[in-house]
């Protein structure tokens, strides 16, 4: 158990440090395009992934660095993708918003709000038809609940009793728009009732709570009891993207949420309980630092795909 808690802590810290490094690299113009950080939301990524089996599948959003890392996409290949290099997990064709690694069941990175949800319906349908005990997890933000694809997917999943977990990261904002300005019912879990789907709301700043709730849901889904919805209450500490001047919320609100930082909170608890000490925290930090240095080095040394290959991967290459 203590090992597991230390593991959760390390995973969250690794995502945090990865993204902080990405910010530096962005300023250094090594990384371009949109960059959406999940800093503050790491407990959801780590807690959800900790509860999944290796064969389970995940379809995520453009704010998915944490999901990818926690799911086991090698940090080197994620970093190389940020650099647009061939060694990247999407060969440099996806970038930050489109991380793919089917070998660990990561089916993207999707930059269309709610666009990945119907895919999980189809994957779940395929699993049901073939009798595979796989759980398909759709990760999406609060903004997705306003999209038609969300409602269509919830209905289909419930109607066909599919092995799909709807995991909503409610960080209270869709870009600059507060939840209450766009949703008539802001209790998002309550919305699942309209589809007859069991739902719960969980403290998304508490990695242990996230993992427990996910495990409960995943167990019941795997047992054939149909889809579930979980609303994780969380908060992004940083702006929506590198372009966002963050004008739409009070800094006091941000500061209040930072009090609940999932990483600091777990560290405090683990130290109090004697599970970890400052020395081992420092050691973890140093390890992660080395891992990141290595990932950056790997990405820097990576290859740019030859322009002759520009039009590859549009259609399947049939060997001639």
């Amino acid at each position, binding site marked *: 158990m203590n090992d597991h808690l230390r593991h959760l802590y390390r995973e969250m810290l690794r995502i945090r440090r990865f993204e902080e490094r990405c910010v530096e690299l962005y300023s250094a113009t090594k990384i371009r395009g949109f960059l959406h950080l999940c800093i503050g939301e790491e407990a959801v990524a780590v807690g959800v992934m900790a509860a999944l089996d290796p064969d389970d*599948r995940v*379809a995520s959003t453009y704010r998915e660095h944490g999901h990818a890392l926690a799911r086991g996409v090698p940090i080197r290949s994620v970093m190389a993708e940020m650099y647009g290099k061939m060694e*990247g*997990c*999407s*060969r*440099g*064709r*996806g970038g930050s918003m*489109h991380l*793919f*690694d*089917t070998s660990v069941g990561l*089916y*993207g*990175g*999707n930059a*269309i709000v709610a*666009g990945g*949800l*119907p*895919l*999980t*319906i*189809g*994957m*779940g*349908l*395929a*699993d049901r*038809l*073939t009798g595979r005990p796989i759980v398909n997890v759709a990760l999406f933000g609060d903004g997705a609940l306003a999209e*038609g*694809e969300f409602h*269509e*997917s919830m*209905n*289909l999943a419930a*109607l066909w009793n599919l092995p799909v977990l709807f995991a909503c990261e409610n960080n209270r904002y869709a870009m600059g728009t507060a939840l209450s300005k766009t949703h008539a019912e802001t209790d998002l879990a309550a919305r699942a009732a309209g589809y007859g789907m069991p739902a719960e709301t969980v403290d998304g700043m508490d990695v242990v709570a996230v993992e427990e709730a996910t495990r409960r849901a995943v167990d019941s889904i795997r047992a054939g009891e149909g889809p579930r919805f979980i609303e994780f209450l969380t908060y992004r500490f940083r702006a929506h993207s590198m372009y966002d001047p963050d004008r739409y919320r009070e800094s006091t609100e941000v500061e209040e949420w930072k009090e609940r930082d999932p990483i600091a909170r777990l560290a405090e608890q683990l130290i109090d309980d004697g599970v970890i000490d400052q020395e081992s925290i420092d050691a973890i930090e140093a390890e992660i630092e080395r891992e990141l240095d290595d990932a950056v080095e790997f990405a820097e040394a990576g290859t740019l795909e030859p322009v002759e290959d520009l*039009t*590859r*991967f*549009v*259609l*399947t*290459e*049939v060997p001639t």
Partner: protein
Amino acid sequence: MTAQPTTQPATTRTTGHTGTPDTTKIAVDGAPASTGTMTYREAMRAALREALTDDDRVFLMGEDVGSYGGCFAVSLGLLEEFGPDRIRDTPLSESGFVGAGIGAAMVGMRPIVEIMTVNFSLLALDQIMNNAATLQHMSGGQIQVPIVIRMTTGAGRQLAAQHSHSLEGWFAHIPGIKVIAPATADDARWMLREALADPDPVLLFEHGSLYNVKGEVGATPEIPGIERAAIRRPGRDVSIITYGGTLRTCLDAADLLADQGIDAEVIDLRSLRPLDDATIMASVGRTHRAVIVDEGWRSGSISAEISARITEQAFYALDAPVGRVCSEEVPVPYAQHLEAATLPSVDKIVKAVHEAMEP
């Protein structure tokens, strides 16, 4: 038969979603034949049946494909034969179930998704464009989407401006998908099978006027390969290039032109993406004249694309400007005479050919 509005033949079920009372008889075939003379509808059904029988990964999904029998009665009887898991009725959720088909294809299934008409595919455009067409590329080649999406297209049945358009040319704009339009019973029978064998997303367009048209279906495809155009009528004087619902109109026009001493070649594109440039250019190289007939609108259309390619690749072979016969630039109207005036017709094609012959 031409693309002129026709009265509903007795074997056609009217499109249920239009609310038209369904007073006509439904043709239910007894012992289903898979070769010989049959309607386009029966040929497509035979293709579906074969696909479902041969490959466990195949299933058909869409609005009213099951209990209702398909809004154009294409899948009639298949629910009884294959059961509700494989002939899957969906809610009115075009984006949801097209996306579900894509998801299932990503993990090893071979879904056939039916969208009632191309007009409703606009609600699923996000999934087709942003997922089906891009996933392989965005994932650096990790993901394949072997899905077939079937839909009806075209006018001619007085269904007005939300059920009559020919938007397949729009889809042909998109890299990452293939767009095919079987125009004959034989192609209906065989192109679906080849589309299913294709590792990439294929959009298959069925012109609504074709379902009751009878044709010969052979034991093997008359034209193998979904990417090849077919010369449906060889000729020396002019190349009439078309596809889908206007093929018959063009063949009728060619018969009339023959009486006038003009020997027209009629090319059935079969595939709008990719386009079979080689067949088109070889034909234009022989006839030195081209008229493109497309039920889509003229502006920014597939006919514009073909015309551009001819000027790029066969400019010096031309003896006359490339002619085009397209739909008038108007949402397809309801009134029969207005609808007829909107669409390509034998008269319009003959006129365009005359202009090409005497520029």
